[in-house]
């Protein structure tokens, strides 16, 4: 148990820091909305990490699931409905349905085909969103109001929203972790590492993968609905494939093994992007090479940094004698 605690120490510290942030001088609107974005993208990244790290499904269309969730909020808003009890379940269900249908096709393939097909479906969602001129088309759509809960405008308070996002992020992390440790998760992991073995003992990977894909879609749908509320604005850019690539980067940068890596990755990237874009006009000229370098050199992601440094320290000449003793 203590080993588990140690391997989760970094993300747990991050969650604690997020809880304390509003009281440590990050309570202004700007900081809170930035952190909310990071936490929301963190949820989507955790669900993608479930697919990539847990099931071996490298999806490059994950932003589309978020987009479906966000556009469900938009569609209800345009129809004058902003009751959360209706809107949120609908957003989650819509994203899950989208994931189920596209997953049913994509999962018939594997490897590089799967990457390309999920990308293609993501693009399909993007162009579809751009073509709905009544929902703003290319220009996007500004919400009339944030979603209400049973008629109360509870989400309007930034602090409440902050803690809602934090709670949901923790819940998503916990839920997905439990999922991976369950019977279902064991089949998923076995099918990832050795599908032939999974079949040989009687498991057909397809239905398990489809359920995982759908669940990840549902989580991303929730993230999308929250994101629409966070910025009170939704545009097709939310579904663009660069967004999907970014989510994937969050997962890999954090580390694929444990799901909590995705949380670290999301925080790091959102803050890094914000910082760089303040510093430079063409900030992607720095961000892009950083991405490439981190792929080439940072094996195992941020979450592996602590154990790796520890191991490296052990190899240094002046510590080696101690380690041997």
């Amino acid at each position, binding site marked *: 148990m203590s080993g588990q605690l140690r391997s989760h120490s970094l993300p747990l510290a991050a969650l604690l820091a997020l809880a304390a942030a509003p009281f440590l001088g990050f309570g202004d609107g700007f900081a809170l909305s930035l952190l909310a974005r990071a936490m929301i993208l963190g949820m989507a990244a955790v669900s993608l990490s479930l697919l990539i790290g847990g099931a071996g499904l490298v999806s490059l269309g994950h932003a589309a699931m978020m987009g479906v969730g966000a556009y469900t909020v938009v569609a209800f808003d345009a129809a004058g409905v902003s009751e959360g009890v209706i809107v949120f379940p609908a957003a989650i269900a819509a994203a899950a349905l989208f994931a189920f249908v596209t997953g049913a096709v994509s999962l018939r393939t594997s490897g590089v085909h799967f990457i390309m097909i999920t*990308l*293609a479906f993501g693009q399909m969602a993007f162009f579809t969103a751009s*073509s709905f001129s009544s929902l703003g088309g290319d220009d996007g759509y500004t919400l009339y109001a944030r979603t209400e809960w049973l008629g109360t405008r509870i989400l309007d308070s930034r602090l409440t929203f902050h803690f809602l996002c934090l709670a949901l992020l923790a819940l998503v992390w916990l839920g997905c972790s439990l999922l991976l440790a369950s019977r279902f998760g064991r089949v998923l992991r076995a099918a990832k590492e050795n599908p032939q073995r999974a079949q040989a003992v009687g498991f057909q990977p397809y239905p398990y993968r489809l359920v995982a894909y759908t669940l990840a879609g549902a989580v991303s749908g929730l993230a999308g609905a929250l994101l629409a509320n966070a910025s009170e604005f939704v545009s097709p850019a939310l579904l663009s494939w660069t967004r999907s690539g970014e989510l994937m980067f969050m997962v890999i940068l954090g580390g694929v093994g444990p799901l909590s890596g995705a949380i670290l990755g999301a925080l790091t990237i959102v803050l890094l992007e914000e910082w760089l874009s303040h510093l430079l006009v063409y900030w992607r000229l720095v961000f892009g090479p*950083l*991405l490439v370098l981190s*792929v080439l050199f940072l094996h195992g992601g941020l979450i592996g940094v602590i154990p790796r440094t520890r191991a490296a320290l052990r190899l240094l000449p002046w510590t080696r004698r101690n380690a041997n003793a």
Partner: protein
Amino acid sequence: MSMLLVQALNGLQFGVLLFLVAAGLSLVFGVMDLINLAHGVQYMLGAYVAATLGVWTGSFWLGALLALPVALLVGLALEWLVFRHLYRRDHLSQVLATFGVILTVEEATRALWGSAPQTVLEPMALTGGPLGGVEIVSGLLYPTYRLIIIGVGVVVPLLLWFLVERTRAGMLVRAGATHPAMVAALGVDIRRLFTVVFAFGAMLAGFAGALASPIFPVAPGMGDTVLILCFVVIVIGGVGSIRGAFIAALLVGLLDTIGRAMLPDALRLVLDPSAARQTGAALASMLVYIAMAGILFFRPAGLFPGARA
């Protein structure tokens, strides 16, 4: 009816451009098992360089010609800097690193050229008008330039076929795609082979970009759309299959072009105009992907399953 003919020709020509990009992508994947998202930036750079040099030199054709070596050099540089280190990595790493390359190159393009679309010289007498049009059916002039692109679509596949099937390098490429270890064991410098294939693919994509520059807006991000359609092409055609890529590229080009032109009007027959416009546009942009889903449902490995699944 003549409207349909024009759209079909436009579709064919879009298909040819897609093929030029997809062929390189598919070769690189087939031979090196590298999934290169950044292939689209070669296309974009081809267009930018052709446009800029065209304006500089005062001749579109000279610009387009000069774009080829530039695309080649950029391809070589990127291979040396980044891709070379990715051949042995998993697809996930390849996707991410090449994604990073896209972000960087597109941002550099924005920094150098700005975000607005570039002016492109007309390929002079070839765009239309009395000298530049060809009467395809009586009373209907079709721009010669666009017909030239279709012509390219006949010549390049034949050339590729010849290179791959009839030359020693082509033989190595085919062998390298199926038995890389074996080819390496026979003393062939696999690295060199990879570099050559890569550079060739980059040049083809740059060529496509140069050809496309007078027809499509030359702006950052132009490579992304084409890249993703090329993925659809490869998935439909079968990974690693040039023949599959050719047929699928024409199919996707036709479907996309005709769908966009015709669907909104066609739906007018059953819906009111504004609804028809919206649904038509939405449906048209989904058409290619629906076709892909349909084909995959029956043939998960594509129409012409290639050397590598």
